[in-house]
């Protein structure tokens, strides 16, 4: 029984650690992405998609890459 409690405690600690690291990494990504989104004319809250594991980064990048920026885009470069 005590082994089971110990196992559950260890598991909880590991899960907590994973979540904490994930939040920390997300925060490091959210801050610059918030700035990029607002400069592009989108709501900065879009950057909170980084909190979604694995695909969050791709969602934010897809929105920025494939939609027209409300604040305007650079003119196409000459070939």
């Amino acid at each position, binding site marked *: 029984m005590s082994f089971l409690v110990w196992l559950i405690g260890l598991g909880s600690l590991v899960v907590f650690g994973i979540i904490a690291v994930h939040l920390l990494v997300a925060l490091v990504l959210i801050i610059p992405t918030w700035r990029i989104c607002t400069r592009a004319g989108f709501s900065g809250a879009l950057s909170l998609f980084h909190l979604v594991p694995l695909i969050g980064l791709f969602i934010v990048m897809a929105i920025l890459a494939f939609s027209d920026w*409300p604040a305007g885009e*650079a*003119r*196409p*470069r000459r070939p």
Partner: protein
Amino acid sequence: MGFDFAALLGLFGLSGVFALIGLVLAAWMAWRIVEKAGLPGWLGLGSILLTLTAVGTIVPLILLWIFAFMRWPRDDETPVVALPGQPPAPPARPGMLPPPTQALGDRRPWRLNGLLPTGGTVAIAVDGTVPAYLLTGAAAAQANELSVPDPSVGQPHARLLVAGGRLGLEDLGTPGGTLIDGARLLPEHGPRDISAARTVRLGSVELALSRS
């Protein structure tokens, strides 16, 4: 045991394919994002591909921070509405749409009407007798100042520009922020043509744009 080993290899192979697809997608999207900011697209592609090298993800992360806070070439392009006293915008390059700097025939004054959070109303008339106005949260002290009496509006908050029957707006970087039809306007965007806009938000005050 042999079967388990083969399954494990298959799993690694599958995750490797996913990683490759993700990398290609990320590189493509980074190319497009960086190009929209006015930088060469290969810079975005290269920064993503750096994750394949020994420097791992640290360098792309640093580059992301630099990209977010650096000055973008897009911000240096010709503003939509020319500032008073500045030369007009140069002609567009071949193959491009010209910037919308043509004068409008309609010369009626612009009106900005809205409700204040305190319950009062604000009505501003922009007749164009002055080429540039300052929108301020304080009481108007000069002929070129327009008052939006609310604590969320900076003192001054933004600049209104009138040229050729068109109306432009430039944010002056106050904490309350400025939005044009819900899209945030930042100081680095410079003056923007709001002749076709419907609403402008200064701090927490939303103003409807019309002509009278």
